[in-house]
C-alpha cells in the first residue's frame, strides 16, 4: 500500500489539531489545548481506486517557544500550510514558513488552508492577496474544522498533488 507522510504546519491556534481531528475522528472541540511536540495519526483514503495510507504529523504551532523543527519534515511527501482566516498575521507567518521549508530544500507539494471560515464576520484576509497567491499556482482552500467543510477536500487535493508529483 502507498504510504504518504503529511505535516500540518502553521502558527499556534490556527486549527491544525482540529483539522486532523475533524478529518480522522469526525469531531470538533471548542477548547484550545496547544500541541506539544508532535502528534501522529493515520488515515486511509481512496485515490483513483487505490488505497493511500496517510501518516499525519500534527506539529506544534511555530513560534518563539516551539520553533518548527525541520528534522521532523524528513520523509514528508506534502504538507498543509494552515492559517487562521480571522488573523491576517497567521497567513503572513505561513508564507514565511513556506519559505523556510523551501530553503531547507524540501520541495514537496503543499496546500494552503484558510481555516475558521465559519467566522465570516471576523474574516481578516484580503481577497486580492489570495488571488495573487493563486496566480502563483498555489492551491488555497477555505476550510472550517468546526463545520467540516473544505477538510476532506484539502487532504484529497494534497494527496492528488503528491501522487502526481511522485509519478512525474
Amino acid at each position, binding site marked *: 500500500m502507498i504510504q504518504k507522510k503529511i505535516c500540518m504546519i502553521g502558527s*499556534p491556534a490556527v486549527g491544525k489539531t482540529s483539522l486532523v481531528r475533524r478529518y480522522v475522528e469526525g469531531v470538533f472541540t471548542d477548547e*484550545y489545548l*496547544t500541541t506539544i511536540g*508532535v*502528534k*501522529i495519526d493515520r488515515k486511509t483514503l481512496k485515490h483513483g481506486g487505490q488505497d493511500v495510507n496517510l501518516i499525519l504529523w500534527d506539529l506544534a504551532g511555530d*513560534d518563539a517557544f516551539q520553533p518548527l523543527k525541520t528534522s521532523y519534515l*524528513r520523509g514528508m511527501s506534502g504538507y498543509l500550510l494552515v492559517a487562521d482566516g480571522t488573523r491576517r498575521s497567521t497567513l503572513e507567518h505561513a508564507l514565511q514558513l513556506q519559505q523556510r521549508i523551501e530553503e531547507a530544500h524540501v520541495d514537496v507539494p503543499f496546500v494552503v488552508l484558510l481555516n475558521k471560515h465559519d467566522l465570516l464576520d471576523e474574516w*481578516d484576509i484580503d481577497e486580492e492577496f489570495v488571488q495573487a497567491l493563486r496566480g502563483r499556482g498555489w492551491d488555497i482552500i477555505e476550510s472550517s474544522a468546526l463545520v467540516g467543510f473544505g477538510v476532506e477536500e484539502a487532504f484529497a487535493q494534497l494527496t492528488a498533488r503528491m501522487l502526481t508529483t511522485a509519478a512525474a
Partner: protein
Amino acid sequence: MDVSSPSKSIFDGPLMLYDAAVLEYKGGGQFVLLGEAPGWFDGYFSTGSDDRLNLGDHSAFLNVFLLDAEQHWSEGEGRLQSGPWTEAGADGRAVTLEASAMELDGRKLLLIAPPTLNLDAVQQLLQSARDEHLSRERERKDVEQREVLLHCIVHDLSNPLSGLKGSLQLLAEDNLVQRDGTELLEIATRQVDRMQTQIRAILDAFRADVANQLPTAGQHAPPDVSESSRAVAEALSPAARLAGLEIVVDAPDEPLLIVGDRDKFQRVLFNLAGNALRYGPSGTSVRVIVQEKNGEVEIAVEDEGPGVPSERIGTLFKRFGKGPDGQTGLGLYFCRITAEHWGGSVGYSPREGGGARFWVRLPRRG
C-alpha cells in the same frame, strides 16, 4: 536480573521509576532491550519471542528520529533528545513518549519514556503564553475595527454638509433671502465651513491607521436601487447645481431590490456620485445608470472629467489607496468592502467618450 553486567543494572535501577525502556542499537535497524520492559512497552512495540526489535517499523516518529540518532551515535556528543511525540502503538493506544540517544562506553543507547514531571508544567506555561498572545491579538483587532468604524462615521458626517453648504450658497446667490437674512446665511455658511474643517482634521488624524473593517451584515430594509439612486441624486442636486453640473438618473421605474441594506447602499452611491461631482467639469452631467445584467444589478456613475490616470487605477479601491486625484481617502475602499460583503464587486473603467465610469454590481434579491 543479571548482576554481573553492571551496565544492565544501572538501567534497571532508578530509571525504572520513570517508566523508561533502555535499548541498545545493534545495527541494521535492530535494537535489544536492556533490563526490564516498562509497563507500556510490550503492547506498544508488540514484542514477540524475538529479542531483536525493529523500532522504526512500529513508530513513524522513531523511524525519522533514528536517522538523526544514527548520526549522533557516530559523531555526536552528549544526549540527543527527540522532544515529546504522541502516536498510537501496535495495540492502538496513543501514548506520549520521549526518546534520547546517547553513547556510553562504546554502546549505542536509546532511552524511551513517557515525559515525566515537567510536561504538565511545560504545557501550562505554553498554554498561558499562547492564550495571552491570542487575547492580545483580539484586543488589537477590536481597537482597529472600532477605529475604522469611527472613521467611516466621521466620513459620512461630511456628506450631508456638502449638500447643506450647497443649499445655503444657492439661497444667497439667488437672492432668495431678504437683507436681514443674508447675515444669518453667512453665519450658517461659516459654521458649515468650520465643521468641514474639523471633520477633515479628524480624518487626517485617522489616515495614519486605518485597518480593514467589514460592514456588519445589516438586517435592515433591502435597498431598491431605482429609488435609492433617485434619492441620492436629489440630495446631491444642490451641490450639483452649484458646480454647474446636472445629475441624471437612468433607472427603471419599477423597484429593483438587491442584497444589502439601504443605508449602506446609499452611502456607497453618495461616495461615487460625490466623487463624480468633484471631477465633472461645469456644464456637463453626471449620470447614474442602473441596469440589470444576468441576475446582477449594475449601478454605474459616469462623469465627463479627466478620468483616472492609469497608474492610479490599480490602487483606487485599496485600503490606503489614493483617489483619482491622488488624495488618500476611505470612500472607495468603503464601497469595495461593502459590495464584496454582499457578494458583489466594484470597478473602474474609463468612460467611452472621455471621463470616468465607476460601477458596482450587486446580486439581485429574490
